[in-house]
């Protein structure tokens, strides 16, 4: 018995075909994984099911009945709920207030919060969510906030729950808990569609997996009949190597030394609280931590983008604390920023201009204040070829490139400046497997050339694969170092959540 049947779904955006005749059949009471790389068309397909997009072709049946889902209200009425990747919660409101938002119960014109609270408590108990209905959103953890999102869909009577990459924001322990909750939901008769590109989670949690590649459905098969390698090659369309080849590191003198660093965030609250960190030439130090523990502020402080309130940052022995960004960059820091579209590129500049974004005022690009465009474009042509940036030419706007190629351009720009310290923040977020392999190779290459690399990533696999040492950041401090060769993901997760682990292999 299928609860969801999508047949021949086609959706175009301009000339781009996001979904090309996709079929998806989901059985009642199963956890059905929707697997594909970023940009493969998973989210588009689910947005169609949730009524956010209208397909050009194809039919949708819910519980065997043909339906037209013209907007999300229709989807909700059909019992479909979506847990978005980015939470849509009002921070100063309580859990209950958030859940009833848009569907408030009233008695004689007054909000009946008490009844709503009871209802939320009942649902929370029924599905083992352990959410306090009176807690304010801003006081609860990200994992809890996600459960509030789940409760929101249940409160609206959802039987079919769509989870859009739910594990991206969670620690390993929270992921375990989420998987337990998903299994509980299914036991209680719900059906779950789980969007992801993480193979491990599919193997652990799901019953069936449907693989989508470049807008087409490739295969749909029971999870028990397959394994990670098989799924990976289905997803990418070729065999992929998971391991990264690298020789043991030959760490030398310290390049970056951070001592007692204190930095405030945008709200004026201390986000980095007395942090110490050393990165030496010839090693990759990975920073592992749950998002929001001071990572962004640390990077910005090192690169001069944010004021340092106390402590010292030294680069090759020179004090660069609170120096101007330009000076720090020219002293040998390369920076692959966390948010490539906001920080890394001027999207409406050409690729050529973007590749000279930092060095435009130096020879050979500038003579006095005169900017020499022929040099800018010649330089861009070389880098485009060397780093395999797929673009029609060097005059194309950066906006027109795919995410992977935008990132390659940034990496080309930063690596080419040959920095002593390369800071890579989330260097592969949202990229496909091919681009990830390329970027990983480049980072290791820098290390092997005797450069220091500081890696920030929320993807634990990436941190464990690339790093020579892992530093764990928690509440604005480095709480310990671990050896990636010996540490397990569980130990790492525990330390990321504030628990104690093995201390200092540095």
């Amino acid at each position, binding site marked *: 018995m299928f609860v969801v049947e999508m047949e021949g779904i086609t959706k175009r955006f301009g000339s781009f075909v996001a979904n090309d005749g996709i079929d998806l059949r989901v059985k009642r009471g199963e956890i059905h994984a929707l697997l594909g790389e970023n940009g493969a068309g998973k989210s588009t397909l689910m947005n169609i099911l949730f009524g956010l997009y209208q397909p050009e072709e194809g039919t949708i049946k819910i519980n065997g009945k043909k339906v037209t889902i013209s907007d999300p209200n229709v989807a909700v009425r059909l019992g479909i709920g979506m847990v978005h990747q980015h939470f849509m919660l009002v921070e100063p409101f309580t859990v209950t207030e958030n859940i009833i938002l848009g569907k408030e119960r009233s008695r004689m014109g007054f909000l009946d919060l008490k009844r709503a609270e009871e209802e939320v408590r009942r649902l929370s108990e029924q599905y083992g969510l352990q959410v306090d209905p009176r807690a304010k959103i801003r006081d609860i953890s990200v994992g809890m906030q996600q459960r509030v999102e789940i409760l929101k869909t249940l409160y609206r009577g959802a039987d079919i729950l769509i989870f859009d990459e739910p594990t991206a924001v969670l620690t390993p322990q929270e992921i375990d808990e989420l998987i337990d909750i998903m299994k509980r939901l299914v036991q209680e008769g719900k059906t779950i569609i789980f969007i992801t590109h993480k193979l491990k989670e599919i193997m652990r949690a799901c019953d069936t997996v449907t693989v989508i590649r470049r807008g087409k459905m490739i295969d749909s098969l029971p999870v028990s009949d397959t394994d990670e390698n098989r799924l990976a090659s289905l997803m990418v369309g070729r065999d992929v190597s998971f391991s990264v080849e690298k020789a043991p590191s030959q760490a030398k003198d310290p390049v970056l030394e951070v001592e007692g660093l204190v930095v405030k965030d945008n709200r004026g609250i201390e986000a980095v609280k007395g942090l110490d960190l050393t990165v030496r030439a010839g090693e990759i130090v990975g920073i592992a931590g749950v998002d929001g523990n001071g990572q962004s502020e640390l990077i910005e402080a090192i690169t001069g983008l944010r004021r340092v309130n106390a402590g010292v940052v030294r680069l090759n022995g020179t004090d660069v604390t609170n120096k101007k960004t330009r000076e*720090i960059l020219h002293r040998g820091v390369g920076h692959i920023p966390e948010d490539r579209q906001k920080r890394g590129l001027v999207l*409406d*500049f050409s690729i050529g201009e973007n590749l000279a*974004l930092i060095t*435009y*005022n130096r020879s050979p690009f500038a003579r006095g*204040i005169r*900017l020499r465009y022929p040099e800018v474009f010649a330089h861009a042509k070389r880098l485009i070829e060397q780093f395999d940036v797929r673009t029609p030419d060097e005059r194309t706007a950066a906006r027109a490139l795919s995410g992977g190629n935008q990132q390659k351009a940034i990496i080309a720009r930063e690596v080419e400046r040959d920095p002593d310290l390369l800071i890579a923040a989330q260097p592969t977020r949202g990229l496909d497997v091919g681009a990830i392999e390329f970027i990983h190779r480049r980072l290791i290459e820098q290390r092997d050339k005797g450069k220091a690399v500081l890696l920030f990533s929320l993807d634990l696999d990436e941190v464990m694969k690339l790093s020579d040492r892992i530093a764990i950041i928690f509440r604005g401090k480095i709480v310990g170092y671990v050896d990636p060769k010996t540490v397990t993901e569980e130990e790492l997760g525990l330390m990321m959540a504030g628990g104690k682990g093995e201390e200092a292999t540095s």
Partner: protein
Amino acid sequence: MNLFVRANRQSPLLLAIVSVLLGMVVGAILMLVAGYDPVRAYSALFRTPFTQPFDIGETIRTISPLIMTGLAVAIAFRTGLFNIGAEGQYIIGQLVAIIVALKFSLPPVLHALVALILGGLAGALWALLPGILKATRGVHEVISTIMMNFLAFYLSNYLVRSWLSSGADSTPMIPESASIRWDPLQSIFVNSRIHLGIILALLLALFMYWLLWRTTIGFEFRAVGLNPSASEYAGMSVKRSIIMSMLISGSFAGLAGATEMLGTDEYLTILTFFNGLGFDGIAVALLGGNTPLGVILAAVLFGVLTYGGGTMQFEANVPFEVIRVVFAAIILFVAANVTGWIVERFRRGRKVKENA
């Protein structure tokens, strides 16, 4: 912020042409409703600016300050700043120019040159304060430049009455030595008030092109205008770009005021309201897509409409206000990006047919 990005990105020519045509249609409808003959009105409007050498000269004179204020607004726009204060910078430019003209005694040419330069500098200083406030305190430039407009307005009126005249409504005429009218130019366009401002305007357009697209300073301006976060990341000083851009923008507007004073008006009166050349600069910049060439073309159009609008009043009995309505309609169409909308409509319509 989105407005800046869009204004700096769109392909402006098609949008400008469509918007102008639609704006004129709106004007025509208005005329029909009010009982005027739009065909006669428009033919008078577009014929008269070009018939006599005198008219051509006067049209060019109308165009010159529009180019300069248009460039002023455009260069700030490129840096992500909305300089509503071109009006005030214009007034200060004209005020300082007449002070130099009346209070200094200098030989010809030099006198005019000093008056022009100080007028431009005064405009720059008038824009500097909002620039500094924006860069250091985050004060929005729209608010501060509007306030600076009123400061300029009342300062000008106060000085005209109390210092530059003896309690009268206007100052004396500027001496010959400070004039920027040029005999050879005037003899071509018999007796019109055309002056060297047009040459300066074209030079400024050239300068803006060179600065924005041929220098590292302009590279910074454009980067800051499109993405301040990335500019900061790349080590540029966003503050410096904001302040420099405001300085240059203000000097352009100040020069517009100075040339009008030394070439067209030759004396300054008590202002009853803003004369609107600075505000028109916003319209010119927007229609011209913030490019130097676009600004020149837009200024030509608005200049022709303004001058032709005056004669239209005589020939077709249509009130001048109709032309201001046409201006406003054109700007609304540009701001609403009508072509984008029409093109989108057209595409969607075609797609539906394909699928049917």
